[in-house]
């Protein structure tokens, strides 16, 4: 019982990371494709402004996913990190470079340097979600079981590659939808159309990848494939598809605020559908939720910590997003930092 509840917490955290972190990765994806310093100037300016206040918060979801994993399901954690060693190691390197690239680009002022940091940030924004997606895809194929040694086969098969690509496409979609809304918020009229077009394009790519994925997973990841094409899994996927189409329509109707809601909803629903399709397994057909669960006292405490945390963290999180969307959060400008106060004259000449 309690292990199911913790599994739901884990799934919810994964969905939250997919949406919050995904939006950030998507912004990085478009940063990569924005073109040279001159042509990409305005999109990059928007990406910088839109991401800056929230990207750290969005990143912390991942830490929470990992913590719930090792506290709640130590065997799962051990299995995944042993078998998927290389892609996870690469994703970790990508995470460092990405965060550092973004953080250092802001205060850097020389163009050449900014370019370097920007490229580092943008490239790793694509690499990291790809590998994370590939890991999830590899798990879905059932190639991993407790005790599996690290090997290329578990994450370089068709399903993994498709899952990786789908993840990147989904982040690009989320990123574009949010940036369209931000462009409207910052009154950058020209960028509204720019990012709206990209949101539509990524939706098309997702559709193509989904069809390919359906074929590939048919025999490669039988268990998850069945779960997603029948019953509640199928229902959720269909709702998600409707949500995605609604997003496209809302973008056209300039209702960009609502488009964000439907876009996030559809991505979250796909994650939940995937989780349900795996039931009762954490790793299809080799490790069930109850087999992987840690000590039940710990799980109860973990739930308690989670509840307290929701009470403590929830309100500030809402406050942050509200302040952000209300435009109350603005970076300190150079002028603020340089404005010289009185009292700078030498004390005792």
């Amino acid at each position, binding site marked *: 019982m309690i292990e199911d509840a913790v599994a739901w917490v884990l799934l919810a955290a994964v969905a939250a990371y997919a949406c919050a972190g995904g939006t950030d990765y998507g912004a990085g994806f478009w940063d990569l494709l924005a073109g040279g310093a001159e042509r990409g100037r305005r999109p990059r300016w928007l990406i910088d402004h839109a991401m800056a206040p929230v990207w750290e918060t969005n990143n912390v979801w991942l830490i929470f996913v990992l913590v719930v994993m090792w506290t709640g399901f130590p065997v799962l954690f051990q299995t995944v990190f042993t078998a998927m060693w290389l892609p996870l190691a690469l994703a970790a390197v990508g995470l460092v470079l990405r965060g550092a690239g973004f953080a250092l680009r802001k205060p850097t002022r*020389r163009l050449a340097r900014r370019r370097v940091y920007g490229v580092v940030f943008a490239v790793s924004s694509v690499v990291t979600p790809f590998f994370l997606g590939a890991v999830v895809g590899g798990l879905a194929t059932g190639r991993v079981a407790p005790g599996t040694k690290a090997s290329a086969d578990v994450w370089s098969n068709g399903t993994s590659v498709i899952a990786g690509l789908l993840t990147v496409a989904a982040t690009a979609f989320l990123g574009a939808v949010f940036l369209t809304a931000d462009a409207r918020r910052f009154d950058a009229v020209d960028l509204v159309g720019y990012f709206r077009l990209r949101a539509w394009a990524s939706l098309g790519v997702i559709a193509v990848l989904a069809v390919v994925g359906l074929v590939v997973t048919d025999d490669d990841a039988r268990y998850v494939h069945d779960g997603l094409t029948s019953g509640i899994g199928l229902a959720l996927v269909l709702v998600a598809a409707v949500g995605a189409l609604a997003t496209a329509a809302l973008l056209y109707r300039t209702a960009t605020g609502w488009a964000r809601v439907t876009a996030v909803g559809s991505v979250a629903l796909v994650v939940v559908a995937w989780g349900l399709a795996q039931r009762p397994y954490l790793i299809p057909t080799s490790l069930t939720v109850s087999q992987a669960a840690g000590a039940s006292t710990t799980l109860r405490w973990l739930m308690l910590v989670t509840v307290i945390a929701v009470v403590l963290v929830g309100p500030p999180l809402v406050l942050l997003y509200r302040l952000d969307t209300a435009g109350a959060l603005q970076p300190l400008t150079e002028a603020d930092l340089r404005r010289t106060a009185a009292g700078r004259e030498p004390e005792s000449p």
Partner: protein
Amino acid sequence: MAFTLGSHILLVPFGVALPAITLLMHYRGLRKGDAVALLLARRWSAVMAVQFAIGIVTGTVLSFELGLLWPGMMGRWGDVFGLGFGVEAWAFFLEAILIAIYLYGWRRLKPWTHFWLGLPLPLAALMGAFGIVAANAWMNTPRGFDLDASGNPVDVDVRKAIFTPMLGPEYWHFVVGVVLTAGYVVAGVYAVGWLRGRRDRYHRLGFTVPFSVAAILTPVQFVLGDSIARSVFHEQPVKFAATELVWKTDTHVPEYMFGRLHPDGTISGGIKIPQLDSILAGFSPDTEVTGLTSVPASDRPTATQATIAHWAFDIMVTIGSLLMLLALWYGWCWLRRRDLPRSRWFFRCAALAGGACLLTVECGWITTEVGRQPWIVYENMRVSEAVTDTPASSLWVMLGIVVVVYVLVLGAFLAVLLKMSRGWRLADEGALSGATAGDVEGDTPYGPRPLSTTAGVDGGRE
């Protein structure tokens, strides 16, 4: 892992303590309407922004590494001691949210609202530190479980696993240590400016506030350091023996300052002070101190590891004692004249104190981690059982990549900080001489200059 943790731990003092010191300055600025204090607080928060971002990525990588390098430990013990990390994750979450509001709230929020929203920041940071230290204390004195026939933990008692005997001493030693370090490092920056002749109120304030905090905490840390050493003596006698180079269990044990332990138990070099070790451990020369030979050779650190732990410990203690003198010097002048010491040597020492403090943080960490060898979970799991079975060659390649990435990132981080402070100094000096600060390539190489008038007061500037 050791390397990334070693790098991350250098950022920790600032993640935990910089918000506190900044808020203190902020409070002073608001309370007294002090524009200089507000300017300092604003600039420190700009530093905090970059520092926190780097800290968050190195921290995320650490949680990956727990899995990539220690799958055995996490698989078996994750549910026993992982909860501390759970507390940390949420506290960190809160910190990330609050820091975002604080950093980006300067311009549009009401001054006092902004301050009050930032105030919970140090508390969240302390809570996060609590979670992490709880996990580490557990590794030193594991509690809260029984072992079944096959050696797996059962009957987990979470309360006992979190509140282990080492938690109290380790936590307070850690908290005071990081605030102290951040205080000395920040003050050190202004001490350098002071030495270079920039003796204005800006530098005086930037020096005095963090230095006072650090100086007050130094004697506190002295007492705490003594208490943690005694806790180690009681809870982890073999580790204590390693840090003090005690070979045979005995009374009237001498204290060695530095020196090197050989595998046959002899000690070369160093300064020997008769009886002192026993006195320090139990206030009497008759105190019996457990020696390394009390356990089989396979269950204790090697001579080299013991020497490393011993040196790290001694360096930490030595620097701590020197800082104590520095704090007394400062306190003496303040009591006598209500003014900073006039000697240039004082400021030279103060400038060095920050770096020395970072060294002690690193040494303290080495002492606790190397002193625990060969155990990763004290007396329950060896490092070799916990480590991943990924081939050593790929681990080395990975380590190589990680080292390169970290050196680049930390190097770039320092370069950016230096650039920022140089820019500010030029701006200040430019303003003093009546000229406006020129900048080479403009504020915003990305993005248009004037966005539109509705975009707010910043008019599209970065």
